[in-house]
């Protein structure tokens, strides 16, 4: 096993040097989408004209000798809950179908300014609520490694697009694991930045105290390149923090020697899947081989994360999704009475899981229940944060599996909402603590499904996570062993 090629970095270099044109790169991506997305359903909208236009602008800028950005000519797909000016943005919901936002999300604006070519909008669980994309109103995404399995969620389209080489990178959003879990299921690098590191401006809100935008890429270095572009202060997001953005690419070159890795022993041992366990053992060996020191740590309150998360996140969602009322954008089901119009619009516009979460959140916030549910959950959230504070006294990164199992089959969990929620058991604690957390591929099962390892860092210490992830990737990366092989396409 070996590190995959850094196609983002290499493409930007090739375009800068004139070895490839941005239009060529873009056409290649559009052709792959054309050829494979019928089977995958990763895209909700392909912006063929917009992408070619952006690519032509890059080539013209080069011809004129203008400086090119760090993502010049790189093809990027955008999760469809990030606003793109004039390009349909639906959150995979009937209630927003066909809506064209009047502005770009901050992260989208930064990608464009860096010369990226945005090829389209990717499929997700409706309003980012789900762990499999089975909650999309427009049909699920297939996992490119095995079309009978889910790609993970909610950012399943963005993860699958990169795994299958339909775009060179993508953006997702992560509220409780929605970047990391599909990253693990699709065998790509997935980054959930520190809360406040990347602006949420233009990210359609699900749970505002948890939502973060993050990239998917084939290689760790490519993710570093994207993070350098999308991170940074934005006055339009009141929770965006003024912190200098370090050189993440340089961090990828720092040896892992001396790094203290805290292994969450109870989480590793809770994994029943033998192949995920084996991949974790291999990861620990790889880190030892790289000169890291392993210590055991415990997060005694992490086991409560599912309960805490599904109270906090649904409460915030019930408030955020109140804006979909048939007045300013999206669907309206006409009725003579205002309240009936709103109720009918929401009844027809939202799918079952979104309704379930709005109901749970409304209940948790309703008179008489606030202290018992929402306030209690926010207090246990403090205990989870304190667990991490204690762990970081003895280590620099905290290691756990990203998921308890590899990608599961379609329909395996749709009958039981709680079973689906429990798929997020390892990704929720860092989210609740606001910490940066990555999922890095660390092996394949015998059946050829990717396994991911989750690394969690101190607030704003993404750099150390890049350093540790690069060490794992160098030894256990999936190399050019790409998901595209499963599409009958070895190219």
């Amino acid at each position, binding site marked *: 096993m070996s590190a995959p090629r850094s196609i983002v970095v290499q493409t930007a270099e090739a375009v800068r040097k004139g070895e490839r044109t941005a239009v060529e790169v873009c056409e290649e991506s559009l052709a792959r989408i054309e050829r494979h997305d019928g089977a995958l359903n990763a895209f909700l909208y392909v912006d063929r004209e917009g992408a070619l236009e952006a690519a032509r602008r890059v080539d013209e800028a080069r011809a004129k000798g203008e400086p090119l950005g760090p993502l010049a000519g790189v093809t990027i797909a955008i999760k469809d809950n990030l606003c793109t000016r004039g390009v349909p943005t639906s959150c995979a919901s009937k209630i927003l179908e066909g809506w064209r936002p*009047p502005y770009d999300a901050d992260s989208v604006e930064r990608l464009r300014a860096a010369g990226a070519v945005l090829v389209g909008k990717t499929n997700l669980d409706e309003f980012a609520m789900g762990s499999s994309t089975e909650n999309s109103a427009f049909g699920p995404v297939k996992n490119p490694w095995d079309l009978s399995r889910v790609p993970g969620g909610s950012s399943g389209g963005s993860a699958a697009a990169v795994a299958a080489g339909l775009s060179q990178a993508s953006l997702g959003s992560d509220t409780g694991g929605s970047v990391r879990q599909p990253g693990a299921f699709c065998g790509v690098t997935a980054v959930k930045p520190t809360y406040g590191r990347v602006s949420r401006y233009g990210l359609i809100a699900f749970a505002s*105290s948890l939502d973060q935008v993050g990239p998917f890429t084939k290689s760790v270095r490519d993710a570093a390149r994207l993070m350098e572009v999308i991170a940074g202060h934005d006055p339009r997001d009141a*929770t965006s923090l003024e912190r200098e953005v370090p050189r993440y690419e340089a961090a990828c070159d720092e040896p892992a020697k001396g790094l203290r890795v805290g292994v969450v022993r109870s989480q590793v041992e809770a994994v029943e899947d033998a192949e995920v366990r084996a991949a974790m053992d291999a990861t620990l060996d790889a880190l030892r081989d790289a000169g890291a020191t392993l210590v055991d740590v415990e997060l005694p309150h992490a086991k*409560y994360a599912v309960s805490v998360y599904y109270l906090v996140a649904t409460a915030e969602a019930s408030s955020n999704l109140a804006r979909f009322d048939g007045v300013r954008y999206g669907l309206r089901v006409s009725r003579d009475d205002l309240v009936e*119009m709103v109720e009918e619009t929401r009844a027809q516009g939202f799918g079952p899981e979104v*309704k379930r979460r709005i109901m749970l959140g409304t*209940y948790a916030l309703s008179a008489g229940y606030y202290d018992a549910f929402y306030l209690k959950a926010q207090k246990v959230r403090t205990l989870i944060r304190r667990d991490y504070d204690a762990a970081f006294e003895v280590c620099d990164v905290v290691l756990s599996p990203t998921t308890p199992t590899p990608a599961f089959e379609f329909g395996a969990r749709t009958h039981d909402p709680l079973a689906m*929620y429990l798929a997020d058991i390892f990704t929720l604690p860092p989210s609740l603590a606001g910490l940066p957390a990555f999922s890095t591929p660390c092996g394949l099962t015998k059946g050829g499904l990717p396994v991911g390892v989750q690394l969690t860092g101190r607030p704003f210490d993404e750099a150390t996570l890049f350093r540790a992830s690069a060490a794992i990737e160098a030894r256990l990366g999936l190399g050019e062993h790409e998901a595209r092989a499963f599409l009958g396409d070895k190219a």
Partner: protein
Amino acid sequence: MSEPKISVDVVRHVARLARLRVTDEEASALASQLSHVLDHMDELNALDVSEVPPTSHAIPLDSPFREDAVREGLSREEALAGAPLEIAGGFAVPKVLGGEG
């Protein structure tokens, strides 16, 4: 399992608060699913958090001041472009007040 935490009547009340119309079938399914999820959440009652402050922001926030400067916003046309119904440069809704309109 003991009696469900959420009855169909409670589901109907909460649905009204959330401005969601639910069918009888949906209300009964929601009562059982939400009760199942809330049963799991009972685990939080095992913890004594009486002395623990709640976390509303995981990362401590400052409240910086900015210049009170004029900035470009959306034009009226842009703001109204997605509206299901627009009348006279405004968002139109069904009549709210009774009497002759």
